């Protein structure tokens, strides 16, 4: 399937342009958040005021931040597609998320404790259900095709891509908006800081591997995918391997690894790397998110479209890996985006230059 277009929101703003700028500019220190009276941590938070499409916002005044981020990204993806009129086009929506509306869910539970069951807000409840973000995309953009939310810790985005491919292959949809969304919250920050290694200086060190440091992030990336091709399509998603052995194929030009400190020890990534293939990692630009693979996948798609190899934003390299250390023009054919989960299962997204 082809990536026809994309849209995104993240810590440095809204839109693909903001992400391209960030890839050029490199690492920037994240903000500090006080998540409890005595604890502070770094976090890559999204500023909702950067959402440019006010017409979209007007249609979702009751939505929580998670849904607003997802709709803003999906709306941009559809807007960049060149499809002027979606009437008569069968478009599906698949939203991937590891933790979904956890912030709103905790707010709902807090309200039950504070006010009792009879005085909790129905709006908070409706926003706390997992399919809320996908439903908002459907309502705001007027999409009438199938809508689904895939929740899974580390491989939700890869699972969503596989589902999208099967919907396209069985002609259930002509186009699919498939993407990921995660939201930062105090509870998440507390858990990540307690169970994992909090970065002492706000830097994720993607090539350090062990110990691995995390900085929570939030944002959303959406792709419009289709088996059709268009002049402006970014690239082709050739294969998505998930919990299965990867087919032996030609050597990629670049490996993008999803190291972001959400595994305490990321040494397992070394198994998938080769000294003669450059490796890149972009998590220091957007933060640690279990569905962060979508952001690295977008970086890969932009590299293929722009014929540009983007330098890894943080380049501490104690193991002497062959890393992408400079931004250079390069005609790239094939990129592997690699993610491991805590059971050391591997997922790979293979991106190929549009033919």
């Amino acid at each position: 399937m082809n990536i026809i277009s994309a849209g995104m929101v993240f810590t440095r703003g809204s839109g693909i342009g903001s992400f391209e700028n960030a890839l050029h500019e490199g690492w920037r220190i994240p903000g500090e958040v006080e998540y409890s009276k005595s604890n502070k941590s770094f976090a890559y938070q999204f500023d909702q005021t950067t959402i440019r499409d006010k017409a979209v916002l007007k249609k979702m005044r009751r939505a929580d931040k998670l849904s607003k981020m997802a709709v803003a990204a999906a709306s941009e993806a559809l807007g960049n597609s060149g499809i002027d009129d979606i009437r008569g086009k069968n478009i599906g929506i698949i939203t991937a998320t590891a933790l979904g509306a956890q912030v709103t869910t905790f707010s709902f539970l807090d309200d039950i404790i504070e006010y009792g069951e009879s005085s909790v807000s129905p709006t908070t409840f409706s926003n706390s259900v997992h399919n809320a973000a996908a439903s908002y995309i459907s309502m705001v953009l007027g999409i009438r095709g199938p809508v689904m939310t895939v929740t899974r810790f580390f491989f939700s985005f890869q699972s969503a891509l596989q589902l999208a491919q099967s919907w396209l292959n069985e002609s259930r949809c002509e186009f699919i908006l498939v993407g990921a969304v995660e939201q930062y919250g105090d509870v998440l920050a507390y858990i990540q800081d307690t169970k994992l290694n909090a970065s002492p200086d706000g830097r994720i060190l993607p090539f350090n591997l062990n110990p691995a440091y995390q900085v929570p992030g939030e944002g959303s990336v959406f792709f419009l995918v289709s088996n059709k091709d268009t002049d402006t399509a970014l690239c082709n998603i050739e294969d998505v391997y998930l919990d299965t052995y990867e087919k032996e194929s030609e050597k990629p030009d670049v490996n993008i690894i999803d190291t972001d400190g959400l595994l305490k020890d990321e040494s397992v990534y070394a198994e998938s790397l080769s000294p003669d293939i450059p490796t890149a990692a972009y998590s220091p630009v957007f933060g640690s998110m279990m569905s962060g693979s979508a952001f690295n996948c977008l970086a890969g798609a932009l590299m293929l479209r722009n014929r540009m190899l983007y330098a890894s934003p943080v380049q501490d390299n104690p193991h002497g890996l062959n890393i992408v250390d400079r931004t250079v023009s390069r005609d790239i054919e094939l990129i592997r985006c690699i993610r491991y989960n805590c059971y050391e299962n591997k997922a790979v997204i293979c991106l190929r230059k549009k033919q």
Partner: protein
Amino acid sequence: MGTEGVQDLARIRKTLKELLVKDLSLEDITPEEIKDDEVLFGEGLGLDSLDAVEIVVILQRNFGLDVKDMENRKDIFYSIDSLARYVFESRKDSVSDG
């Protein structure tokens, strides 16, 4: 109604306007811009049925009032003024009952 009552009613109106803007996430409008007699639903402020349920929650949380029969008490939800009078009268009743 005495001076104290008038002042109390004005305070309730102000609080209700602030709560509505905040809890109903009303955009492009400030509490000061909501008129006391502005129709809340449909044409006026443009609220809908889900907002009505949220207003019931607002009354419960902030004024300790339980609107049990929403269907037959639509008059309460007509405007800020009608809501404020309902809050004012209910408080007065509870004080005199006590």
